[in-house]
């Protein structure tokens, strides 16, 4: 930490989003004026923003120095850093575009580096669709300020009017042809300065990089087999490890017969500490065989019993002991003439990464390096240091891409395995990958949820009151201490996970998007949070928003029908936000809503959501088909309208929306975790089916509304809720049956609609 950091009150180095969850408190100190201090609360640990930094853009609040983001080397090479990571959304390319635009440099000339505790800014987690708002806003402003500082230095050096200078490809030019490279200007400028609240931003009308569909940097390598993932890392002397995990939660390891594993060719070591057990071998397949032999030699005691799946909904109401009122508005209202109520259910789901989690650890000369696809290298670093009783500055976590995670999967846990094993075998890089069954059985599942809603209509078909309650356990078991890392809980002296705490509005956890954006004169909305979890849970793409938007949007359809109104018109009548109205109208228009004619067995549905009520706006109309004999449902077509503020990469937005709709369709129609009292049963893709090509839609059209100069709004999770709502409504339209328990397709549907 530099002296300047201390002077600034050591701003905790973590994340921020431009639009979001901030709580502003005032600290009154005797004899001093009130100082605002901002606390940022999202996934992971809360972050305190240093005094005076709360006006800075995005993650500049927590990483205010310009040279933390942009470095100019003596050879005039430009390196740009983000503290975020690439999770497969293409956001690295979008962030590069932002920096390139304001630096006025060709994107190909920038070396762009992502999160690494050894050298990047600390932006906490890459989660919650925050990346463009946090890191994009920081880079936009940092790049503009760096360009301006260099331009001013050039004006002084060249004795020219700064307004007459132009910047192109890391060189500042005067009208008379004289020029200076950025590197040549370094002696005349100090980039180790705190950012200013305002920046000389480029007029959006003259953007040349932002707003273009720049091809993703990573795709050519990925489609040609170049090493692209942590799974592909190879290092001199690297050995392979596999772990043996308990057969059930809390099952104790009673005895191990190591003979089979020791007899495996290539065997190097068995590492055991309490219930943590692993085997290391020279070659990867040898490690797999040794793991099988070791696993066969284990005797485990009984673990904790799980509830039966059908008991979960009732049990949630008992274990949800924290009652949090997230909205309570009262206003005079017209007399209610019709009251509707409904209850919704969601089962546990899994992330289902195609590649099981993997990490490489290397202990060398007292320094531990871990290559990881974690969403948060800094929180992981802190957790590993605690687990291993090592100073934080002796642990370095470097992000390398992995298989898509969609939230808190096994990435951090396997990194802890790699760290533990690397310390046990110092000097040798140790690569650990979980097996498919381990990825499935030890996932942090997305919680089962229950939602209950009651609302009344006045005589003219207007909603006059809205009463909503949801029940859920934690969507946020991120690494805030060592005990949140699975291997640390298996040690002979185990670490205890930090207690589960609910996330707060406006971002919310289980209650994310529980507050409808519609005009509701009276509303009462309660998040019933369970601090205990029958199954391990944590964050998955959109958290509670998938369920809450599903419930809200399908109930809006019920209300529209009760009011005798068209569902789109009914939404328009209850909406004040003009940007919401724009996407609703655009999606309806592109779809040709209302659809006059239906094919037999087909239905149309509409839904809207503004992610977290803070981020991207998404409205969509979809068409589905239903086979009455089987209950098989297929999403056929979607027309989608999206507004995520200033668009940086339109094709990147489309790719995220398309993918979000398909993934949400899979969750909503087909997926549920199978388990019984003895354990989780969804150990493979046969016991946890997801969407395959036969169920893929024929058409999805994404229509973008650009807002030049407006703040970046996160979009990668914004389709999940609206897709679920639109599919639910289309299913009702097709069958006349209202289904409120997900998954909607399959046997329960067949039982209700079979001819």
């Amino acid at each position, binding site marked *: 930490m530099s002296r300047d950091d201390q002077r600034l009150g050591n701003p905790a180095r973590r994340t921020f989003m431009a639009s979001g969850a901030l709580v502003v408190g005032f600290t009154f100190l005797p004899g001093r004026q009130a100082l605002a201090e901002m606390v940022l609360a999202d996934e992971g640990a809360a972050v305190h923003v240093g005094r005076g930094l709360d006006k800075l853009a995005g993650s500049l609040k927590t990483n205010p120095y310009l040279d933390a983001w942009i470095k100019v080397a003596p050879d005039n090479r430009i390196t740009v850093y983000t503290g975020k990571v690439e999770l*497969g*959304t*293409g956001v690295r390319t979008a962030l590069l575009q932002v920096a390139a635009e304001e630096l006025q440099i060709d994107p190909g000339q920038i070396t762009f580096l992502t999160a690494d505790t050894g050298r990047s800014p600390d932006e906490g987690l890459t989660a919650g669709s925050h990346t463009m708002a946090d890191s994009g806003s920081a880079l936009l402003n940092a790049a503009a300020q760096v360009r301006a500082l260099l331009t001013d230095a050039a004006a002084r050096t060249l004795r020219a009017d700064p307004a007459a200078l132009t910047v192109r490809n890391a060189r500042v030019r005067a009208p008379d042809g004289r020029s200076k490279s950025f590197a040549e200007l370094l002696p005349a400028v100090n980039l180790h300065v705190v950012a200013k609240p305002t920046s000389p931003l480029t007029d959006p009308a003259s953007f040349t990089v932002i707003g273009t*569909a720049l091809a*993703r940097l*990573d*795709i*050519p390598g*990925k*489609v*040609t*087999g170049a090493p*692209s993932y942590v*799974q*592909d890392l*190879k290092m001199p002397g690297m050995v392979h490890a596999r772990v043996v995990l308990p057969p059930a939660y809390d099952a104790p390891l009673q005895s191990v017969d190591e003979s089979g594993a020791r007899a495996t060719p290539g065997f190097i070591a068995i590492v055991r500490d309490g219930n943590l057990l692993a085997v290391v071998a020279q*070659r*990867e*397949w*040898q490690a*797999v065989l040794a793991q099988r032999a070791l696993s066969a030699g284990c005797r485990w005691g009984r673990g904790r019993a799980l509830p039966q799946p059908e008991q979960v909904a009732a049990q949630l109401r008992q274990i949800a002991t924290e009652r949090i009122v997230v909205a309570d508005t009262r206003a005079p209202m017209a007399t209610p003439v019709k009251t509707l109520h409904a209850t919704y259910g969601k089962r546990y789901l899994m992330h289902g990464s*195609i*590649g099981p989690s993997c990490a490489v650890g290397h202990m060398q000369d007292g320094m531990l390096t871990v290559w990881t696809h974690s969403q948060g290298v800094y929180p992981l670093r802190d957790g590993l240091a605690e687990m291993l009783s090592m100073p934080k500055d002796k642990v370095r976590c470097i992000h390398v891409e*992995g*298989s*898509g995670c*969609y939230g808190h999967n096994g990435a951090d846990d396997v990194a802890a395995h790699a760290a533990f094993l690397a310390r046990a075998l110092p000097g040798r890089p140790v690569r650990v*990958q979980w*097996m498919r069954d381990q990825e499935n059985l030890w996932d942090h599942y997305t919680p089962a949820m229950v939602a209950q809603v009651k609302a009344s209509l006045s005589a003219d078909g207007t909603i006059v009151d809205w009463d909503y309650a949801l029940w859920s356990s934690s969507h946020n078991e991120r690494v805030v201490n060592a005990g949140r890392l699975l291997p640390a809980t298996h040690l002979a002296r185990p670490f205890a996970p930090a207690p589960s705490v609910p996330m707060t509005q406006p971002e919310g956890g289980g209650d994310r998007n529980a507050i409808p954006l519609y005009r509701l004169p009276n509303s009462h909305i309660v998040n019933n949070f369970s601090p205990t979890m029958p199954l391990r849970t944590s964050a998955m793409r959109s958290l509670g928003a998938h369920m809450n938007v599903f419930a809200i949007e399908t109930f809006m359809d019920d209300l529209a029908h009760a009011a005798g109104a068209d569902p789109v018109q009914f939404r328009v009548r209850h909406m004040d936000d003009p940007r919401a109205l*724009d996407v609703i109208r*655009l999606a309806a228009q592109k779809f040709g809503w209302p659809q006059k004619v239906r094919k037999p067995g087909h239905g149309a549905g509409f839904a809207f959501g503004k992610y977290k009520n803070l981020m991207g706006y998404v409205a969509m109309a979809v068409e589905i088909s239903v086979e009455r004999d089987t209950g098989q449902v297929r999403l056929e077509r979607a027309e989608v309208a999206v507004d995520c503020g200033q668009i940086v990469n339109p*094709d990147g937005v*489309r*790719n995220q929306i*398309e*993918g*979000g*709709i*398909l*993934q949400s369709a*899979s969750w909503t129609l087909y997926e549920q975790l199978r388990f019984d009292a003895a354990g989780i049963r969804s150990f*493979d*893709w*046969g016991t946890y089916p*997801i969407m*395959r*090509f*036969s169920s*893929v*839609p*024929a*058409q*999805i*059209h*994404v*229509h*973008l509304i*650009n*807002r*030049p100069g407006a703040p970046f709004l996160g979009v990668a999770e914004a389709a999940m809720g609206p897709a679920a709502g639109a599919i639910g409504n289309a299913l009702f339209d097709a069958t006349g049956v209202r289904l409120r328990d997900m998954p909607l397709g399959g046997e329960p549907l067949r039982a209700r609609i079979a001819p």
Partner: protein
Amino acid sequence: MIQLTVNGVSHMLDIDPSTPLLYALREDLNLHGAKFGCGLGQCGACTVLVAGKATFSCLMPVAAIGTRPVRTIESLGTAERPGPLQQAFIEHQAAQCGYCIAGMIMRAQALLEASPHPTDAEIRKHMEPNLCRCGTHMRILAAISAVSGSPASVGKPATETVR
């Protein structure tokens, strides 16, 4: 010793004959395109061509391959000079995380070599064994269609700018 012919090159490997082809490709031959996904033949991330047929390399022991030629995604082109199918995947930006993509491309390659002009329905049926979790399916279908000359199933509307 196991003899393997991979991407036109013959290799002698001193490995356990039961080793699945996937591990030999990745560890001995430095061909990282094929990925470990499930080890069960359920997801297709490990798909390569064995004698022209799309094959789960995670399940196929090297001893079972014999003289049949193996082809991996690395044989189709490089990032600098991608092959036609790879080029189509780049043009359609048909990847999100991309972990499944090498397997997708190799399964599609097997189809196009056997049947250069498949219908959309034939492509979907052929691709059924391979899983994608990011939901990139429609771009994958569009990229394959572009190479097969059949009409792409996805259109790309222009961005509409408000204000």
